[in-house]
């Protein structure tokens, strides 16, 4: 356990301490938007929270002496590919207020879009008629907030479950400590999700994937409810990759009978077989697509509702309205804890169901 602590700290030192070769240049404040009241501020805050970000913002406040906004945040490394890699820390970006110079190229963050663009030395964005930015956007491989959270959860899961397995083996099958909390959950996934859906014979191949995906989604959902304000499973790219894994595993482990049921449905007249084939083929793609949309939309919607209710407190600014929205926000938080578990469960359950379809034996 001690070794793992050292390893974790070394990795974080490496991530956060990456040396930088970039130097910031100030931009005139003309382009920075002025505030449009508390409602716009809350709206901007919510839309910004829903997106990925280049730094781990913890809090911000307005300094009373200077009148400037002070941000408390963990900088994360920015990695750009634009004819060779460019490395610098996100603290150089200063929320889009400065232009960053890296190997004679100039980059600037567009804070509204949370995206880094290549600019000239003055950091000018060129817009077209539809308010779209015409500047070249380099490929962004940055360790963003979402990616750093995924890495963190991966480390937590790796050390947690390897230690659980070790202590389980040492105690001859009796769980200890935190394992007493996790053992029933793991057994539930095996006995209630994997075995009834996939079958006694073949469930073992899928157990590792089902357990991983369940705890991964659950931990990330729960982290999204902490004041850290990460929104990983509410990001469509993340849910897309998770659903892609389910899609690939389903189709690469499928047997003859599964494909037979898709392209040449047995037991129906030939004409219906021809009609059914494209519908069934479409179903192959719709199944994982509904998985990805469900998880993404549930978490995204939950975050929007929660943030809006918290924002209502600051809009009302009186005792009755604010306390009412506080109570509402409190209850929605509790529901969100349930949703976090439920969505992880549904994703695992439906994945197991699809695997079950893929390996079902033809016994009729």
């Amino acid at each position, binding site marked *: 356990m001690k070794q793992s602590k050292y390893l974790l700290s070394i990795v974080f030192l490496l991530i956060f301490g990456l040396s930088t070769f970039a130097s910031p240049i100030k931009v005139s404040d003309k382009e920075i938007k002025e505030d449009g009241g508390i409602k716009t501020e809350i709206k901007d805050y919510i839309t910004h929270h829903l997106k990925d970000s280049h730094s781990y913002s913890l809090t911000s406040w307005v300094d009373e002496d200077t009148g400037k906004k002070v941000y408390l945040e963990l900088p994360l490394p920015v990695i750009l590919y634009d004819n060779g890699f460019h490395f610098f820390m996100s603290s150089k970006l200063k929320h889009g207020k400065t232009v960053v110079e890296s190997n004679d190229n100039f980059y600037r963050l567009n804070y509204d879009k949370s995206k880094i663009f290549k600019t000239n030395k003055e950091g000018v964005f060129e817009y077209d008629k539809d308010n779209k930015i015409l500047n070249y956007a380099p490929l962004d491989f940055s360790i963003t907030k979402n990616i750093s959270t995924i890495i963190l959860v991966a480390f937590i899961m790796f050390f947690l479950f390897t230690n659980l397995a070790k202590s389980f083996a040492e105690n001859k099958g009796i769980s200890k400590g935190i394992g007493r909390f996790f053992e029933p959950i793991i057994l539930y996934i095996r006995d209630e999700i994997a075995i009834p859906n996939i079958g006694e014979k073949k469930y073992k191949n899928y157990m590792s994937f089902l357990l991983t995906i369940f705890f991964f989604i659950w931990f990330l959902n729960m982290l999204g409810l902490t004041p850290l304000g990460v929104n990983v499973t509410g990001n469509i790219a993340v849910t897309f990759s998770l659903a892609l894994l389910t899609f690939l595993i389903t189709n690469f482990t499928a047997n003859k009978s599964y494909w037979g049921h898709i392209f040449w449905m047995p037991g129906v007249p030939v004409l219906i077989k021809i009609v059914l084939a494209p519908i069934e083929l479409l179903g192959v793609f719709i199944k994982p697509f509904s998985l990805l949309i469900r998880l993404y939309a549930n978490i995204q919607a939950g975050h929007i509702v929660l943030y809006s209710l918290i924002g209502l407190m600051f809009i009302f600014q009186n005792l009755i309205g604010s306390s009412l929205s506080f109570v509402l926000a409190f209850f929605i938080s509790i529901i969100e804890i349930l949703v976090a578990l439920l969505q992880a*469960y*549904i994703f695992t359950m439906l994945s197991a169901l699809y695997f079950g379809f893929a390996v079902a034996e033809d016994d009729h």
Partner: protein
Amino acid sequence: MEIPVIVGGGLVVIGVGIGIGLTGKGAMEAIGRQPDASGKIQVAALILAALVEGIGFAALFAL
């Protein structure tokens, strides 16, 4: 007069609400008749509710 697109969103939510409500109603009645099978019924009801909800989300995203 043109009907705004967001009205479709409201209709979708009404449909999904009815769907999930009926799922819950069926599950509750089934548990009332067969309390022993409540575990299985709950699982099936959750999956069906998730499927109905998925259609609703898909429609809302198509708006």
